[in-house]
């Protein structure tokens, strides 16, 4: 029984990690809506955010069912506090200038794509189904963020400098994507997920390829890395995101429309 409980709990945590990273990044991207630098960019960011929100709903609905405590996708999105969120620190980083947003997206997409490819082979059919659906959407996200990194890096002196500064600043949030803890070990043993550490080299190769074409310099792969998001230890940014995202349900509990 104890094993069963911890197995369900590991699966719940694993689903929250996927769901929360997509939810928080979607919320960040939606902040650009109506004020992106060009109409096409505005539309593209809203589209990417929409895909990610759709994916978050699928992950969080399943997380709620797995938990078995009667919480649905909305309860998980709107009624948890920052320390209960399991998203990567990378996705909660501020939008900053447009290069900050795009480099953040490229780092994330280049991880998200192979992660979903691996999850589409999951022994958990529901996870495999969600991932197989999401990976098709993320293929377009990755193509776009990769293209933009090249346009910025290999653009003007100013866009290059901004893209380089963004890459240098965000680099310390990329290590977390390839970590493995007890939750991961339990899920790997069940065939639910694959070892994220195995994705690091392909991720690095993809990012490096993009950076070479973008004439950007990649930080040292063995640089010191931040950690904690997957365990609920967040940067101060998350609280502000939640304050906005959860306002309605906090102020008017149970509101529906």
């Amino acid at each position, binding site marked *: 029984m104890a094993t069963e409980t911890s197995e369900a709990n590991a699966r719940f945590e694993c689903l929250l990690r996927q769901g929360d990273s997509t939810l928080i990044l979607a919320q960040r991207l939606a902040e650009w809506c109506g004020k992106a630098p060009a109409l*096409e960019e505005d*539309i*593209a960011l809203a*589209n*990417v*955010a*929409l*895909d*990610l*929100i*759709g*994916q978050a*709903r*699928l992950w969080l609905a399943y997380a709620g069912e797995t938990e078995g405590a009667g919480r649905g996708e909305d309860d998980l999105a709107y009624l948890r506090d920052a320390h209960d969120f399991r998203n990567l620190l990378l996705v909660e980083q501020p939008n900053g200038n447009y290069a900050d947003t795009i480099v953040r997206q490229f780092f994330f997409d280049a991880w998200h*794509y192979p992660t979903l490819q691996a999850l589409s082979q999951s022994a958990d*059919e529901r996870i*495999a*189904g*969600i991932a*197989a*659906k*999401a*990976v*098709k*959407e993320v*293929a*377009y996200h*990755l*193509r*776009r963020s*990769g*293209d933009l990194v*090249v346009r910025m890096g290999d653009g003007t002196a100013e866009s290059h400098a901004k893209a380089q500064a963004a890459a240098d600043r965000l680099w310390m949030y990329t290590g977390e994507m390839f970590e493995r803890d007890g939750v991961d070990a339990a899920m790997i043993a069940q065939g639910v997920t694959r070892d994220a550490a195995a994705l690091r080299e392909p991720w690095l190769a*993809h990012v490096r*390829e*993009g950076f070479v*074409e973008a004439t950007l310099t990649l930080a040292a792969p063995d640089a010191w890395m931040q950690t904690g998001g997957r365990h609920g230890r967040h940067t101060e940014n998350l609280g502000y995101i939640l304050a906005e995202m959860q306002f309605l349900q906090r102020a008017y509990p149970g509101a529906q429309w």
Partner: protein
Amino acid sequence: MVTLAPAAVATEVYATVAQVWTWLAEVPDPEIPVLSIVDLGIVREVAWRDADGRAECVVTITPTYSGCPATEAIAASIVAALHDHGVADVTLEIRIAPAWTTDWLTDAAKEKLKQYGIAPPAQQTIAIGAIGRGRRAEPVVECPRCASTRTQCTSPFGSTPCKAMYRCLDCLEPFDYFKCH
């Protein structure tokens, strides 16, 4: 109204499965009304089920994009359409695997899209392995107005999740392209 009493369902059903399919084929997609939800391959299965002595029509749908806002409108319009035809008990089931693909669009649907001014998907499912910039092949997209293949993508994301924005280099018209998915 056709009244049938197949062995599997003891109660009355109001229409054959084939009849329900023809009704669903008249339900337009809310974003691209020239196509029906059947043309798009969203409706996967129709069946009658015995629910405590009542005949219940079960419609299984596979949504397109994860976050497509049309999904909820589609669900509501399916229920409304069947109610209009006298089917009182409708249950919608969502099936996400296998994932929706533009490969499910029929040739007739692609032709309708083109007539409507949207270039249909140019190839079968996206070659997902080829995401590296140097390795990927861009689809040859035909202008829905002048049929030129000298076209250019202006943005990979458009007014709905399923479309990209293109322009024709010959007739100079901008147009929507229904992305491979």
